[in-house]
């Protein structure tokens, strides 16, 4: 198989993820774009298993599994933060989050 195809697919998916993180204003859509980037990295790790001769065979797959677990933890905590912030302020748009008012509230 020509290994360059999945590599290029991974690169394009990563670029789409970067574009989405920079473009989107809704926090949940930003998290979706982050998932795209993590998947691109996973795809490249699994492809590297085929194309790169490693000391331990199957390391790319193991790392991909680890990244999947990390992504699950990340999305759990991230969505908990987004939902809690929505409950406090009714805001899901990243641009409208004001950090200075929080500091005043905690200090006062």
């Amino acid at each position: 198989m020509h290994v360059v195809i999945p590599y290029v697919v991974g690169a394009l998916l990563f670029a789409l993820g970067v574009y989405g993180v920079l473009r989107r204003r809704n926090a949940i859509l930003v998290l979706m774009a982050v998932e795209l980037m993590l998947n691109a990295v996973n795809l490249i790790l699994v492809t590297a298993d085929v194309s790169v001769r490693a000391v331990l065979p199957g390391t790319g797959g193991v790392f991909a599994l680890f990244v999947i677990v990390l992504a699950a933890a990340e999305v759990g905590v991230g969505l908990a933060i987004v939902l809690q912030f929505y409950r406090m302020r009714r805001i899901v748009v990243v641009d409208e989050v004001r950090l200075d008012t929080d500091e005043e509230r905690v200090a006062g």
Partner: protein
Amino acid sequence: MTVADVLLLALGAIAVGSGALVVTSTHLVRSGFYLVVSLGAIAGLYLVLGAELVAWVQVLVYVGAVVVLLLFAVMLTRAPIGPSADLDRPALPAAVIGAGVGLGLTALFVDAFRWTRFPSPDPGTAERLGEQIFGAWVLPFEVLSILLLSALVGAIVLSRPDIGARKAEDA
């Protein structure tokens, strides 16, 4: 072009196409469903690349859990059902940076691997991957279990309003 190449091209086109729809769609919920299609196509790519267990874990964890969690959050934040007008920032800086990253990485990979043919891997079994995880990578595995536990506790603490907020009001 072998069968594997055709499969890789087709699944890659599906993954990239629906990925593009994820980041450009004006419907919040449709973005989530396009994400399902993209992640499913990536799972198919794993199967072609011989990483069977990773493909099924991808379907279970990503398509099964993460996307459901994301759609759940979309619903809990009272997202409008129709298209939303104010989802995006101005496109130009994001497009420039995204295109730069994409072109750079693509050039890097094309230059590194060219159009060379690699032997198809024999389909990896869960047994071999399990030997790797519990042999060479057992310490990262344990660290990861601690991380999952702390993420679980953190998510519970964050989403319970009666733990953190009351102390701030008392003080």
